[in-house]
């Protein structure tokens, strides 16, 4: 019985060890489009100040796929007023170093497949294009952008 208990502990230990997450994503910055009157398009390239910034880290060398859940609208506090938001390939960039010149542009509407080395960091920046109408009601509008990273099995 005591032997079985030891085996069970070993089994749980193994499971916990293997369940440890090798991959992590941290949001470093939210997106801030500032403030302006309605009727003016607000473009935020991935190289502009105010973009969302994420940090991806992997403890192991692996292939990953990055998908970005982007909203169709920013919505005001009462949930009734909307500002359409769109994205193009000028709105997203990634790099293994935290500077502008090394960023590689990508289309945030499409999944991005990358290889990440052991203990490497990948940064991702995301902007967008807001289209407030001329008659847009004043106030604060918000929306969420979720970046998801999934490891891919290697053959």
């Amino acid at each position, binding site marked *: 019985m005591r032997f*079985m208990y030891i085996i069970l502990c070993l089994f749980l230990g193994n499971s916990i060890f293997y369940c440890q997450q090798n*991959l992590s994503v941290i*949001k470093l910055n939210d997106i*801030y489009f500032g403030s302006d009157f309605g009727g003016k398009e607000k473009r935020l390239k991935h190289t502009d100040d105010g973009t969302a910034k994420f940090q991806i880290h992997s403890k192991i060398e692996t292939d990953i796929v990055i998908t970005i859940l982007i909203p169709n609208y920013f919505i005001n506090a009462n949930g009734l007023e909307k500002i359409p938001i769109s994205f193009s390939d000028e709105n997203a960039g990634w790099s293994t170093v935290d500077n502008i010149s090394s960023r590689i542009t990508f289309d945030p509407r499409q999944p991005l497949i990358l290889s990440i080395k052991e203990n490497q960091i990948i940064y991702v920046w*995301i902007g967008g294009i807001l289209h407030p109408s001329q008659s847009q009601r004043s106030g604060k*509008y*918000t929306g969420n*952008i*979720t970046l*998801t990273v999934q490891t891919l099995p290697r053959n």
Partner: protein
Amino acid sequence: MKSLLKKIFLLSSVFIIPINAQETASATATGSFSVLGYTTVTRLADLMFGDLVLGDNTTVQPTSPKAAQFLFNGSPNTRVQISITYPRDLTCGSNTLRFHSTSAVFNTISNPTTATPFLEATGGEATTGNDGNLYIWVGGRVMAKKKQPVGSYNGLMKIIVVQP
């Protein structure tokens, strides 16, 4: 016992393999943008006390045609904050006439008789109409001393409307 060990080993393998095969991690960023509203405040009428007898006082109600009238225009159906600042005295050269604030009312249409009073004479919250309009009427009271120097007295009243 060996058979049991084998089962546990196989069981752990079954659990371990799919967990280690794929991992997912995610994080969410919040985006924000503030739309500024075009707003105007127009003075439509001054507060007129008219002629005053020495030693007498007179009060103008906000619903009176003699009340000060302002028109704010901003975003439709929006809660706004109104702040009214009154003069301490009306002046005529170096002579002063004491001014007392009384009350103020607001309405989304140009009709003071159906207007709503602010809780304080210094203003408060109100909601603009479908066209973004908000009318505000302000009254007041003055009292002339028996030895009040004659003349035309006036002062400045300020109104600030804040739209979020």
